[in-house]
């Protein structure tokens, strides 16, 4: 049972010509853009750009999900999980299911993933997980769910759709444990 409906429909601001959803500028991009950006991050190991991309995702979604919960008075644990799952799906990132969530631990399943499925569509299977944007989203989600600051959590893709698995499985733990 969903306890809270997500309110996310973008509205076009005619003056600035921007799409605005719940107070944030949003923009439509395709799987080419997401996967090319991901590949760019993969290839720039000198900058540890995989983590750079994941942290950008974490910082942005920490703010967006946090703002949403404050503005719409989403305070319960279950409500926050459901809103975060819905936000992921509504924005086209895929189908995310939180299997369990605790103060120090969690398990998340991606039954579908824009980044992974886009990667396979563009380049075929990957040798290693590619969903850095998804990892960032998941740790941001946990920080928002438990009212903790960014960089509290770390996420690891244990299996990945991009690598040929049916679903992606991501485990979450305290960042200090990794």
């Amino acid at each position, binding site marked *: 049972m969903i306890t809270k409906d997500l309110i996310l429909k973008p509205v076009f601001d005619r003056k600035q*010509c921007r799409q605005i959803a719940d107070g944030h500028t949003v923009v439509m991009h395709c799987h080419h*853009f997401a996967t090319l950006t991901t590949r760019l991050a993969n290839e720039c190991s000198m900058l540890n750009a995989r983590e750079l991309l994941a942290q950008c995702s974490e910082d942005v979604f920490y703010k967006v999900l946090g703002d949403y919960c404050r503005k719409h008075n989403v305070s319960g644990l279950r409500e926050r999980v459901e809103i975060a799952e819905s936000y992921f799906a509504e924005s086209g990132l895929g189908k995310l299911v939180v299997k369990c969530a605790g103060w120090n631990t969690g398990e998340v399943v991606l039954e579908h993933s824009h980044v992974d*499925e886009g990667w396979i569509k563009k380049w075929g299977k990957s040798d290693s997980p590619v969903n850095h944007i998804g990892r960032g989203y998941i740790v941001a989600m946990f920080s928002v769910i438990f009212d903790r600051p960014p960089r509290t959590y770390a996420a690891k893709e244990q299996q990945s759709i991009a690598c040929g698995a049916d679903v992606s499985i991501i485990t979450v733990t305290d960042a200090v444990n990794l």
Partner: protein
Amino acid sequence: MAIDREKIITELSKLDLRSDEKGIISGFGVLLQHLPATIWTLFSERFTRAVPNELLEAAEYLLVDAAHECAYHTGYGIITSEEWKAVVEPMIKTTEDILHGAFAIFTAWGWGKVEIQELIPGEKLVLRAYDYYEADVVEYGKSSKMSAYLITGASAAFMDLAYGGNYDPTGKKGLGTFEAKQVKGIECGDDYGEVVVTKI
């Protein structure tokens, strides 16, 4: 010019692309997502600020190149879509009209409030952007570095589609027949952003 830019922006900005039960948005021949713009600008800024000065140009090239390839494929999806056929195609008389129409959609989707300033068919495009999310990276003062990587790459891609020959889904032919350079930026204190696209 037969293109009714205002009508295109009004109609295409209302496009309501929803995710399916898998959380996937499909349209225009690609998979789409509707994310906060800051995720892209934050990555671009952190990425380009992290590299040493001598590698900045190479880092910026990679960001522009990603946008170029993305817009080549998505742009083709746009100009062959049902929405294009319904709204824009009846207005088209020339190849240049296709470009004006495509940039009107570019505006409607929130990529940037852009207009063609100068167009030499098959040779050169000057595009102005009067508002664009990539300029939001600077909220005070002027940056010494331009940041409109998406607009720059996409401008070249649209010229590829207009004058680079038949669309090639592999991107091996047709993509990369034009190159673009940002010459002005709101983020740098200019009144508007400007991109110059030239044939390679």
